[in-house]
């Protein structure tokens, strides 16, 4: 849908698949508005999820407590490694990195880009005084059209109940 003087609006029907529970799908609809002269401004996105997302409360609490009880801040790099391996204990970090990469993709998307997280180059946990977990990421994002793989720095805050937020 072309909206004069504003931009291009796309109405999408999507099926989400749970990466950790393949075969489990949820439908959702989305409206994406790419603004004219787009490169300065992230597209507007509205999403409605039809149905329920699986509860991850138990795993969330376990991960949260494990990280909180670490003596030294977590530091890791190259997730997955060159051969595609992810140590099981770093899998939740990998998933949080996906969330962070979603933010970066959204902020930088135009009608001519397609981003994927190529690798978590580096992640460092930063201890906080409040209840959030903080992870400073260097993410490598692969852009399909230009084929470039470029690093992006993102700081992600996460809490089992409050969810994930990108810190500016």
């Amino acid at each position, binding site marked *: 849908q072309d909206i004069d003087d504003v931009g291009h609006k796309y109405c999408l029907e999507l099926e989400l698949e749970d*990466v950790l529970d393949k075969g489990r799908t949820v439908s959702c609809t989305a409206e994406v508005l790419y603004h004219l002269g787009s490169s300065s401004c992230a597209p507007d996105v509205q999403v409605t999820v039809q149905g329920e997302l699986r509860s991850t409360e138990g795993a969330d609490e376990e991960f949260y407590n494990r990280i909180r009880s670490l003596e030294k801040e977590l530091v890791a790099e190259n997730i*997955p*490694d*060159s*051969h*595609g*391996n992810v140590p099981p204990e770093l899998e939740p970090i990998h998933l949080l990195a996906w969330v962070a990469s979603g933010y970066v993709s959204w902020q930088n998307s135009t009608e001519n880009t397609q981003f*994927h*997280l*190529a*690798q978590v180059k580096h992640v460092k946990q930063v201890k906080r005084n409040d209840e959030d977990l903080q992870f400073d990421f260097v993410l*490598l994002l*692969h852009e*399909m*059209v*230009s*084929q*470039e*793989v470029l690093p992006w720095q993102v700081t992600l805050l996460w809490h089992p109940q409050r969810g994930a937020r990108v810190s500016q």
Partner: protein
Amino acid sequence: LQVDLWQPSSPFHMVRGTVADVRVPRDTTRSLLPYLQQANIPYTILISDLQQAIENQTGGRSHRNRRSLSGYDYEVYHSLEEIEDWMHYLNRTYSDLVHMFSVGKSYEGRPLYVLKLGKRSRPYKKAVWIDCGIHAREWIGPAFCQWFVKEALQTYQTDPDMRRMLTQLYFYIMPVFNVDGYHFSWTNDRFWRKTRSKNMRFHCHGVDANRNWKVKWCDEGASLHPCDDTYCGPFPESEPEVKAVAHFLRKHRKQIKAYLSFHAYAQMLLYPYSYKYATIPNFNCVESAAYNAVNALQSAYGVRYRYGPASSTLYVSSGSSMDWAYKNGIPYAFAFELRDTGHFGFLLPETLIKPTCTETMLAVKNITLHLLKKCH
């Protein structure tokens, strides 16, 4: 007398009455042990042959180098050296079916090896060309080329389709097209894509080997900037790797009936054109071959591939090997984009090599058998 101190960490920590561990080369023991005896320093030999102890411990890893078809591990990624050793081994051991040769040298001087597979059953046989690893970081490509060869050698006696394929056709397999880039992705930058040629004016290296072919060169979908990942090069066939393979394919253009190039990732089976939105003359044949191949692939594990002309299915790009092969008279020109669709992307885990290769084999066999049925 020099020793390698293993314990304590420094001579300053050596104190009377405590234990010190040292490592010496074998010849040094002839002087060290008498010295210790004379000085009344008691000693015990903990490891009498360190090399042997190391080999025993890393025995699990030596499968990478073991020199037998059944010993070579096709479910791990192999370095360039390992792949070359493997080719040499097959060339020696399966000389009735395999002939290894070189089409030229890479920018950094490495040989560009190709395996010619097939029974020498009749004087003139048509051929299929398969290359993998045009883009360095797409490791699943070379993994598939190796898998294909393995399947061919292991099953041609028991599988009637494979027997037909190797009897009626030759297969030219180039397991690693971009040898310099592949090596670089192992040693320096896992996400390297291009070749490793040096640029005169900029500090950037390399040309996109799939934008360097002489077909609508450097038009849309390629970059003139040397630092970009889709850099088309200073001129067509500027890259020795591209020039060498183009020369070979030109020379054998009457013989070669199919060109298959393996890339990652997107899960697609693509045919010409990449450089424009237009229908190829033999669309009906190629499209039905693609349709059947994708269905065959899906029959293995349910994995869905999209298929169609590259320009509308993936993106517009110019100077690609597939378009060039087609323009040069090869009726079936395909580019595969193997697994996955972005979850692991280039870092496809080794555990997924087997399913990816197994399903892809079905597609390749399907295309080959379609080719033999003479719809061109």
